[in-house]
């Protein structure tokens, strides 16, 4: 099974929504630490906040890949063979 067809099966809309919610949560945590600069908010911003940022962006990146894989006539935009794909599956759970 090629990487392309594997990706094509992924839930693009869900990925995008997850990206949005993760980023919104990250923004909330980070903004809160600026308004209330106390120990726990500041620590949360630099840990949970950053992780949510990365998760959100990863979901977005995956969603774009899925879109490229499913777009008709975009065959050459991704390597056609099943070269060992970056093992980033867990992110699909969102």
């Amino acid at each position, binding site marked *: 099974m090629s990487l392309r067809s594997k990706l094509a099966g992924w839930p*693009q809309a869900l990925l*995008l*929504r997850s*990206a*949005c919610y993760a*980023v*919104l949560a*990250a*923004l909330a945590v*980070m*903004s809160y*630490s*600026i*308004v209330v*600069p*106390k*120990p*726990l908010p*500041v*620590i949360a*911003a*630099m840990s949970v*906040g*950053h992780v949510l*940022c990365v998760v*959100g*962006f990863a979901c*977005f990146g995956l*969603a*774009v890949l899925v*879109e490229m894989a499913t777009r008709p006539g975009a065959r050459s935009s991704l390597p056609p063979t099943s070269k060992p794909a970056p093992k980033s599956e867990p992110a699909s759970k969102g």
Partner: protein
Amino acid sequence: MLSHVTPVGYLCLVAALASAAIVIWYLVKKPALGLTTKLTLLFGVGVLPAAVAIASTTVGMQATTERRFCGSCHVMQGHTWNAEHAASDSLAARHARNPFFGERNCYVCHADYGMLGYPMTKLNGMKHVWHYYFGGFKDKSLDHAIDEIDLYKPYDNVNCRQCHSGSLTHFKSISDHQSLEKELGKNEVSCTSGGCHGFAHPFSKFGKKAPKKSTVKPAGSASAAPAASSAAPPASGGAP
């Protein structure tokens, strides 16, 4: 309420709002994932949040150097209250009145200035946070905490010397500075020992080291009362 937010902090909040606006727009409108949408989302979930993450980190790190921050844990409020109090003349308080670092006086005296100083300072701070929430300090009264909390390591004179180099004529003209030069350099004598500049936080020393003649027994009950000098912290739990 937002008086403490710095310009960078405001920029950060604006970027966060812009990013949130894009994301919410997407969630509400659900546009097809064309090039424009992709690029807009790239900003909304990529570029802007990254900027917010970086800026909020610098703002947060800066915030951790403020006395207000140290005082956000009640066990530190004896020290912060003492330093802020107009009538207080502890060494820490006298270093709180300089407009250039007064608001950060706790940090400038207590940061680690060694080679790995910055990360070590932050690690040490994380230790305090841990002990506060999981080491029982959160539920201790201020009085108890003041009795219990002590420096992990003896105070390093280098911390004074980053500002008071000790190389100027006036400093050198003091006979004690002259005679103790070696000991001060090797931290065998502390600048803040009893006979020298005194403890930086004398109020916290009652029942511990301050009454050098050891007339006061450190035993329980009696130790709390004499601490009530003019510059002593408010009674337990009394957050100013």
